[in-house]
């Protein structure tokens, strides 16, 4: 719950310090309804916008910065949030731009948390209504946009999306199955199913078909078997005949062979000698014999050759050592070539060393210094190096430090000079600073600016208002006082005007009276003149004369009196007769006379009235005139002009009062400013200074003084720093110099210790290179000396070894070792060759001896084998030699072959005839001839041909039947189809069930969504409907929604039941609908616990009076739920609000 307690538009739009106080919250049930009235341009919209700024901050592009710059804008307010009053100020800063009462920053959420999640745009469109927002937001709501729009139609987000879900489900369900549709999944599965069933029917074979085929196959099989049996019998007979035909010649051959084998009965039945073996043995024997001979001859030749070789064992003995000597020989050769060159190099280096000592180390020529003495070890050399470097570094550092110290001294002098100069420049300190501090010049100048900026516009307004009072050349320096208030003057003017009107009317009326009087008098005159009419008065006087005469007559009763009386009587009668004859004229006359009298009476009355009115007017005019005079206006003035002037006077008085109040408010500030100027003016030597100028100058001077002081302090501290630095440096320098001196002493001692006096030490201090050179040359010298010595040793050794070998080998040696060596080598080589050759010959002789003895063993083996084979043959068969043996074996093989053939022929015969023994065979073939057999065979063959054909036919028949049965086969095609069919059926079932699931789900959801809409439309819709009916005074009694594709639209039904959409209504009615929507939304939010100030900016403009009344009632009702604020420039709206709400509405003025 948020309530606006107070809104201060301090600097915003055209406002500076505009404040609205909405008072303390009303009691429970009391409406919090305010009407703010102000003329055009008074800032009603600005007020509403200012409120939004307080809640949401200033936008980047702020349209309300036309008077005050954006950075100066400022809006504050006191909000009653859930019963607690809190003050907030909104500044145009970056976030956080919110401040609390004490100016402390507040997070944005401090306010946002209480806005029920409404964005600024939402707030504007819902609860800050003007011509634009009421329409824009209203359209959005009726198009179901935004939370409130959805609330209106669906009571919750997301329902409108659901129709899409339903459509998708319907489409999916229809894709699966639709009545009579042929493209659905189910339909296509049905087609496939029918097709598979057709294929099954085509392929399937029933049990009965199968049985028939099987029987046929069985029968064909039996017939084939029978044909086969018959054919087989014929074949057997044919074979029998053919066998006997073959057997006859066999028997003849058997008999012949038997006779031929008789002489060889004693020969062995088996012979395990292969004739090939015999041939091989024969060949082997001849080969061995010729080899035996050849080997003997070769051995003799070899022995002779061996005996002829000459051998030198002493030469052979040295051959090893000569080879060893080869390496020494080659070193000898190298030395021969190199030795002289090396010796020369060595003497050159010694020369160089001496030169270095003399030239670079300054050893004087008269003292011969041994260069060796000056060659230092590398350790000593590097020590010397280090010592020299340390000494030189120390001296160099000391030198650098010395120059630094000198430099520092110069800088100190310069700094001291600068300090003196600054101190000289220092102006005498004035009490300006003290004055400024006492007056807190910064705060004062801010206050002064604020005061001036508040007072000056007020002064201008007051002056403006005063200027406006000028009239007819008369102007006013001060606001004149007038005895009459504006209201009194207005009342007076009013009465003058009214009296004048009545006076004028009375004058007009009396004029008319008088005209009528004249007319009547004329008419009477005319009547009287024209008819001689005796008037009533005349008749009366006649009658009175008569009566007088009668009375006289009665008293006297004489003739005279009688005559007089009679005469009078006659006159009366005559007059009566005359009057009777003119009775009509007389009546008219009488009437005229009466009217005339009445008119005259009224004219008299009127004259009195006119006089009174004139007096009254004069009094009023006098009052005004006197007021004009008392107001100090010299010139005469029309009352109306005076009233207008009085109005201006009121404004002027108000402006003056405002000016006074502001001046009073800021009196203290101005006084302090005045006092400050008084104190500063002499100091700054200025006349009639302006506050701003003098403050600025004082500040500038102060700033200059502060800067100078700061500079002086810096100069002083610099001098101090430099002096300190110098002190440190001087100490350091002394230290360094001590160290350098010590190092130089060390150096001198070292040189004296290492070198004889002849050496110039100063040269060494410049560079140690001569020592390094000397050391390098020495190293080279040592290497060369070592090489020369080695070569000389090699040469001596080689000569000695050659001499020794020569002695041992008995060879004479000369003084040329190389030639001697070559001769020794030749001798040794010859001895080695002879030795190798004799060894080779001995080996060959041994090998040939071995071969010879093997050949002799082979010949013995052959002989023994022949003897063993000969023992197999019967006595008397020649087997002495290998050749004879071979002949006997051949004959034996022939015999054994014949015996085998005989046995084979006997077996063939028995087999051909299928008989067990030879006797039976002879018996069966007895008395049989080939011719007889052939005749019988031809007969059987003819029968067989017929049987063959029959058999073939039977095979074909059986194969065909079998094929037919086989074609059924165990193949699984039908099974596969049945499986496919089963799967298809399952798929159909799945599709059907899925369809049903979707379809039933669809029906359920569809019905549920409809019910949901029915129940949920009520809350928000009901509220809107009620408010709209109230606003239109019942002209529109019902609201309904209509689903239009994916969206819904709002329809209003008038009392005749006609439906209208918002855009079809008049502007006023449409605004009422939109206001009703806001009212409903306001209540909905209030119901949810969020209630916020509700602003309307003159949106009732297009409402007629009755509906304006209703609108006021609606506003009042909203005020009961929260806070309703209506801004208007229509006085009549205020009147109506007062009329409708009496004291339940609070009226605020703006710009008064």
């Amino acid at each position, binding site marked *: 719950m948020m309530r606006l307690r107070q809104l201060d538009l301090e600097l915003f739009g055209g406002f500076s310090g505009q404040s609205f106080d909405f008072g303390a919250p009303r009691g429970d049930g009391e409406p919090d309804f305010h009407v703010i009235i102000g003329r055009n341009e008074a800032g009603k919209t600005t007020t509403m916008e200012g409120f939004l700024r307080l809640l949401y901050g200033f936008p980047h592009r702020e349209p309300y910065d036309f008077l005050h710059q954006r950075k100066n804008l400022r809006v504050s307010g006191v909000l009653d949030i859930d019963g607690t009053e809190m003050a907030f100020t909104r500044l145009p800063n970056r976030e956080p731009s919110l401040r609390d009462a004490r100016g402390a920053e507040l997070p944005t959420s401090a306010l946002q948390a209480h806005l029920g999640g409404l964005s600024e745009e939402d707030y504007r469109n819902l609860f800050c209504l003007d011509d634009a927002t009421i329409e824009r937001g209203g359209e959005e709501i009726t198009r179901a946009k935004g939370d409130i729009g959805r609330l209106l139609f669906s009571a919750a987000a997301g329902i409108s999306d659901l129709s899409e879900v339903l459509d*998708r489900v319907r489409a999916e369900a229809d894709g699966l199955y639709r009545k009579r549709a042929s493209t659905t999944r189910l339909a296509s599965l049905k087609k496939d199913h029918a097709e598979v069933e057709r294929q099954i029917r085509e392929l399937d074979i029933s049990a009965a078909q199968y049985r028939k085929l099987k029987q046929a196959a069985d029968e064909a099989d039996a017939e084939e078997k029978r044909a086969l049996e018959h054919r087989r019998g014929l074949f057997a007979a044919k074979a029998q005949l053919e066998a006997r035909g073959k057997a006859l010649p066999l028997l003849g051959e058997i008999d012949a062979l038997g006779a031929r084998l008789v002489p060889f009965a004693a020969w062995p039945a088996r012979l395990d000698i292969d004739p090939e073996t015999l041939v091989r043995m024969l060949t082997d024997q001849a080969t061995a014999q010729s080899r035996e001979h050849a080997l003997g001859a070769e051995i003799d030749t070899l022995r002779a050759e061996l005996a002829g070789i000459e051998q030198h064992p002493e030469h052979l003995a040295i051959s090893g050592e000569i080879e060893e000597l080869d390496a020494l020989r080659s070193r000898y050769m190298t030395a021969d070539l190199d030795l002289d060159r090396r010796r020369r190099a060595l003497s050159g280096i010694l020369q160089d060393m001496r030169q270095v000592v003399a030239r670079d180390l300054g050893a004087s020529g008269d003292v011969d210094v041994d260069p060796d003495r000056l060659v230092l070890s590398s350790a000593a050399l590097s020590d010397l190096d280090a010592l020299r470097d340390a000494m030189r570094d120390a001296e160099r550092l000391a030198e650098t430090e010395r120059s630094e110290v000198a430099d520092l001294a110069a800088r100190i002098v310069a700094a001291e000079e600068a300090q003196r100069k600054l101190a000289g420049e220092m102006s005498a300190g004035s009490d300006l600073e003290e004055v400024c501090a006492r007056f807190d010049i910064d705060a004062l100048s801010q206050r002064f600016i604020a005061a001036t900026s508040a007072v000056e516009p007020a002064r201008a307004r007051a002056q403006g208002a005063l200027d406006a009072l000028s009239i007819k050349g008369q102007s006013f320096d001060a606001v004149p006082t007038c005895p009459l208030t504006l209201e009194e003057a207005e009342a007076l003017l009013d009465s003058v005007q009214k009296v004048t009107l009545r006076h004028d009317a009375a004058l007009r009326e009396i004029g008319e009276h008088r005209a009528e009087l004249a007319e009547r008098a004329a008419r009477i005159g005319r009547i009287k003149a024209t008819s001689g009419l005796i008037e009533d008065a005349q008749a009366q006087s006649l009658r009175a004369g008569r009566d007088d005469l009668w009375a006289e007559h009665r008293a006297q009763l004489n003739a005279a009196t009688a005559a007089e009386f009679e005469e009078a009587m006659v006159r009366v009668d005559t007059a009566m007769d005359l009057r009777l004859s003119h009775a009509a004229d007389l009546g008219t006359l009488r009437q005229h006379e009466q009217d005339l009298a009445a008119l005259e009476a009224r004219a008299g009355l009127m004259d009195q009235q006119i006089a009174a009115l004139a007096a009254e007017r004069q009094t009023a005019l006098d009052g005004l005139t006197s007021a004009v005079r008392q107001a100090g206006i010299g010139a005469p003035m029309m009352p109306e002009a005076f009233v207008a002037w009085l109005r201006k006077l009121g404004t002027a008085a108000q402006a003056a009062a405002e000016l006074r109040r502001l001046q009073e408010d800021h009196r203290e500030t101005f006084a302090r400013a005045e006092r400050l100027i008084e104190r500063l003016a002499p100091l700054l030597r200025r006349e009639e200074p302006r506050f701003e100028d003098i403050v600025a100058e004082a500040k500038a001077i102060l700033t200059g003084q502060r800067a100078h002081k700061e500079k002086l302090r810096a100069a002083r501290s610099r001098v101090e720093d430099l002096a300190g630095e110098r002190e440190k440096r001087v100490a350091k320098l002394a230290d360094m110099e001590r160290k350098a001196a010590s190092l130089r002493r060390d150096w001198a001692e070292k040189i004296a210790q290492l070198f004889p006096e002849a050496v110039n030490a100063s040269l060494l201090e410049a560079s140690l290179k001569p020592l390094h050179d000397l050391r390098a040359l020495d190293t080279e010298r040592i290497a060369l000396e070592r090489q020369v010595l080695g070569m000389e040793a090699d040469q001596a050794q080689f000569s000695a070894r050659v001499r020794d070998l020569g002695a041992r080998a008995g060879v004479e040696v000369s003084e040329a070792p190389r030639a001697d060596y070559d001769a020794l080598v030749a001798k040794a080589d010859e001895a080695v060759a002879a030795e190798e050759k004799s060894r080779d010959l001995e080996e060959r002789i041994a090998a040939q001896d071995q071969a010879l003895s093997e050949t002799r063993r082979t010949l013995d083996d052959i002989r023994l084998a022949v003897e063993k084979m000969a023992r197999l043959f019967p006595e008397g068969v020649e087997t002495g030699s290998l050749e004879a043996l071979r002949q006997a074996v051949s004959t034996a093989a022939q015999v054994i072959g014949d015996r085998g053939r005989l046995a084979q022929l006997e077996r063939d015969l028995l087999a051909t005839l299928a008989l067990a023994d030879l006797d039976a065979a002879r018996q069966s073939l007895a008395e049989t001839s080939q011719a007889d057999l052939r005749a019988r065979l031809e007969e059987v063959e003819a029968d067989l041909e017929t049987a063959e054909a029959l058999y073939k036919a039977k095979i074909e028949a059986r194969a065909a039947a079998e094929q037919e049965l086989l074609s059924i086969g165990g193949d*699984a095609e039908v*099974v596969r189809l049945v*499986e496919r069919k089963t799967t298809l*059926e399952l798929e159909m079932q799945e599709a059907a069930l899925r369809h049903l699931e979707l379809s*039933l789900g669809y029906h359920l*959801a569809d019905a549920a969504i409809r019910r949901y809409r029915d129940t949920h439309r009520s809350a928000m819709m009901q509220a809107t409907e009620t408010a709209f009916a109230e606003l239109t005074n019942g002209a529109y009694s019902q609201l309904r929604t209509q689903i239009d594709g994916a969206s819904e639209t709002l329809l209003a039904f008038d009392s005749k039941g006609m439906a209208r959409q918002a855009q079809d209504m008049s502007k006023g009615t449409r605004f009422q609908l939109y206001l009703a929507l806001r009212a409903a939304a306001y209540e909905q939010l209030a119901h949810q616990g969020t209630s916020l100030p509700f602003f309307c900016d003159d949106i009732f403009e297009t409402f007629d009076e009755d509906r304006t009344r209703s609108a006021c009632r609606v506003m009042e009702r909203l005020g009961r739920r929260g806070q309703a604020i209506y801004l208007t420039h229509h006085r009549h709206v205020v009147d109506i609000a007062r009329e409708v709400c009496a004291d339940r509405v609070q009226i605020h003025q703006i710009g008064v």
Partner: protein
Amino acid sequence: MRPGALKLHRREGAPEFGRRSLIKILHTADIHLDSPLKSLALRNETLRDHIQSATRQAFARIIDTALAEGVAALLIAGDLFDGAQRCAKTAAFLSGQIERLRAAGIAVFYIKGNHDAENPITGEVALPDNVHVFDGRGGKVRLGDTDIWIHGVSFTGRHAPDSLLPKFGAPVPGAVNIAMLHSSLAGAVGHDTYAPCSVDDLAALGFDYWALGHIHKRQVYRDAPWIVMPGIPQGRDIGEAGAKSATLLTIEAGQITVEEVPTSVVTFLLHDIDVTGAESDDEIRQRVRSALHALSASLAPGETVILRLTLAGRTARHWQVLRDAAIWAETAVQIAEETGRLWVEKLCLALEAPRATAADTAATDEIARLMAQISTEAGFAAQALAEVEEVLAQLPPARRAALLPDEAAMSALVRDLAASGGTHLVALMKGASE
């Protein structure tokens, strides 16, 4: 054929039965040859090629096992044929397979079951002469020259309301006696009974082994004497889930031992995957993947499985999964296919809704409540019934009969469809308002 004179063609070199000390016999039943598998997984062509005519393959496996184990006999305790499948090619296939046994000298003993009795092929098939078919009068046959006697009684019609036990003769004293009977035993309430008898009745008759058939789920009722229902060798739908087998008897010195030998080409399996606590689709997908891969890894080599998967548990993605059920089903199929051995026929969702939150006051929840309310109203029930009847009329009669076995099934089906359709719509609507 004369009893006791079964002609056997022995393999060359096969030992004489009498001399064998160890004899094996294979016992199976309820082969339902050429009865098709009922599974939507078979929509997949790869799977179809792989396991087509699975009942044939399973039967061929039994024959393979018989040959490999060198059994003396194969016992088929009824329902060799399926009542509905009447193609002569079935007979041709059967003859071919039995011929293999004949060539190996293996005897086949066969009693007819209720399905055989109604199948006209049964009478027409000229089975090879190694098959002994018991008739309705019952009888006994000696297995070769062993001391084993096979007793059996066939069904003579589709129904056998009375016990067939009186038709069995007495066991042969001193021999091993095996009795073959097709029976629903005590039966189950609501199902027809076939040759009813109790396990105790069987045990009392003095046979050593009761080779039973009819009930498709394997069960060993007793081991002294053995009373064994071998179960169907190949499950045909998810109702016959689990790996299937035949029963191998080993008879040594008059003692019988029993073991299972696998027969099924494809196994139907119900498998639950718990997705409790899964916060994202990726996580759920990961759970499905790891569950399926773990399952695949646990299978015997060469085993193929048709899965009915259920996602269960409580997950934050509850509504989204329901909404995208079709996508999830496809995802499961894909992941299973990756393994090359698992095939998903259906993905069931048994997810628990997340615990009620403040959001349950949302419009869709109220709509869901309204839907639940409307679904119980008579008007909706009548409309739904009419629609279901119309759509189901489109299905082949066999499917319709399977879906709606009785009057009560119809209203239950309508209720279920409305409930699941409603849940689906709520999920879609919740999805739409996301």
